[in-house]
């Protein structure tokens, strides 16, 4: 007698609404990893220890590289498309530039030359226009018309951040020299992309892609806070290789990599 041994598979139910959730375990893992790494850096008593410099530089190099590789995968997926293909390539190139800049900076340090201002700064700064291109390309495609209220907010936020920095920096240094303008360039760049990332998250917020953009905005917020904090530390000469500001950069890039993974999974 024929017996049906295999269990008849229940048909999958089609969801009425697409849902995508943030996996908070991933965030937990990222933050636990970077905090553990920071604890490890604290074990070095001498902040000028060459081994500390090497380990910190490696971490500074690897984290944006991970995000850049994730970006290349996303860009490859949409290679022929006008918006996604080009914009994600620009974003991943921007993060690749950050990784390269770390190595250039380290090379300058090892040769006993002044690492900043140097070519490393230009490579670092190229991250901002490339990321801005990514944000602008997506926002202009998906939201060509933006309300005056949102526009004002997006313009005022970087102006405010820049003004506060310029006021504090000038108050401390009392001179508008190369260091002042270089610091200002970082602040302007990071403040502008922060604004763009928030706008992007607002544009997509009601769709599933909004999750990926929210995570991306969070990653950019973390790196921007890191950039701003570093600039203030630099003004008051308080930055060290094992300063907790590094946590924000490491976590920021890893969160961006997670956002890119999310994007690839969603669409």
């Amino acid at each position, binding site marked *: 007698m024929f017996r049906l041994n295999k269990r008849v598979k229940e048909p999958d139910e089609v969801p009425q609404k697409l849902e995508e959730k943030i996996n908070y375990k991933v965030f937990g893992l990222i933050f636990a990893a970077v905090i553990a790494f920071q604890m490890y850096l604290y074990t070095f008593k001498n902040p000028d220890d060459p081994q500390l410099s090497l380990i910190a530089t490696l971490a500074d190099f690897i984290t944006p590289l991970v995000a850049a590789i994730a970006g290349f995968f996303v860009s490859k997926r949409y290679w022929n498309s006008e918006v996604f293909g080009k914009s994600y390539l620009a974003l991943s190139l921007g993060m690749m530039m950050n990784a390269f800049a770390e190595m250039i900076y380290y090379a300058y340090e090892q040769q006993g030359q002044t690492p900043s201002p140097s070519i490393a700064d230009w490579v670092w700064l190229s991250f901002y226009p490339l990321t801005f291109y990514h944000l602008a390309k997506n926002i202009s*495609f*998906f939201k060509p018309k933006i309300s005056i209220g949102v526009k004002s907010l997006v313009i005022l936020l970087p102006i405010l951040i820049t003004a506060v920095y310029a006021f504090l920096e000038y108050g401390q240094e009392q001179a508008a020299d190369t260091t002042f303008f270089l610091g200002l360039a970082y602040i302007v760049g990071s403040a502008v992309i922060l604004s763009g990332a928030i706008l992007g998250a607002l544009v*997509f*917020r009601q*769709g599933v*892609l909004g999750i990926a953009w929210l995570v991306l905005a969070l990653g950019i917020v973390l790196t921007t806070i890191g950039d701003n904090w570093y600039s203030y530390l630099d003004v008051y000469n308080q930055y060290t290789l094992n300063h907790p500001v590094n946590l924000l950069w490491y976590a920021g890039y890893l969160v961006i990599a997670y956002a890119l993974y999310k994007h690839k999974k969603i669409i």
Partner: protein
Amino acid sequence: MSGLDTLIARSLDSTIRENLGEQTYQKLERRLFERHGIGFTQAVEDFRKLDSVLREFFGNGAEGVERQIIDKIMILEQSKRQEKRWITIEDQSLTKLILESLGDEDKKNILNAVIDESRIISDILETSRIPQTSGYRKVNTLIQSGMLIPEGFATTHDGKRVTKYRSVFENISIEIEKNKVIVKVQPTKESLKNSHIMQLVCL
């Protein structure tokens, strides 16, 4: 479905692939099938369903996608009087379709016969003096391409209800600039009002 939507639908498919990529296209198509049981081509013709799926993925960004897609196909000129707006056709296949329809003497006569008022097919053929056999074929081609749209009914002497048709455009202008043929059309008030795509995107 509005005639204007049929015309636009001919070009939407390729434009979505170009802008959003093949993978995105497939993902959208899969979701359309899951949710509405239709393929992409049918969804393009039923723009509200496509809009709902685009919104599921892109949220408010769907509006931008739709606008960009339409802009690649046509440019709606700004005018205070919404119903008197001219549309410049950007899409070459759509331009070709309109020019071919106007290049055919019989089709041009058919369109001229229904430019101001809607008529039943036999009336159209009589007014434009076209033989029945080839006339029906050409009218059907114009209906399928969206150049003729149904508008009301007429009752024949034996009591049958017969559909009346009207041209989707009130005016068509053809300009030649260097090597480029520019086709501008002025849709009828009704076709603009009945177009889901135009309602969602342009108005």
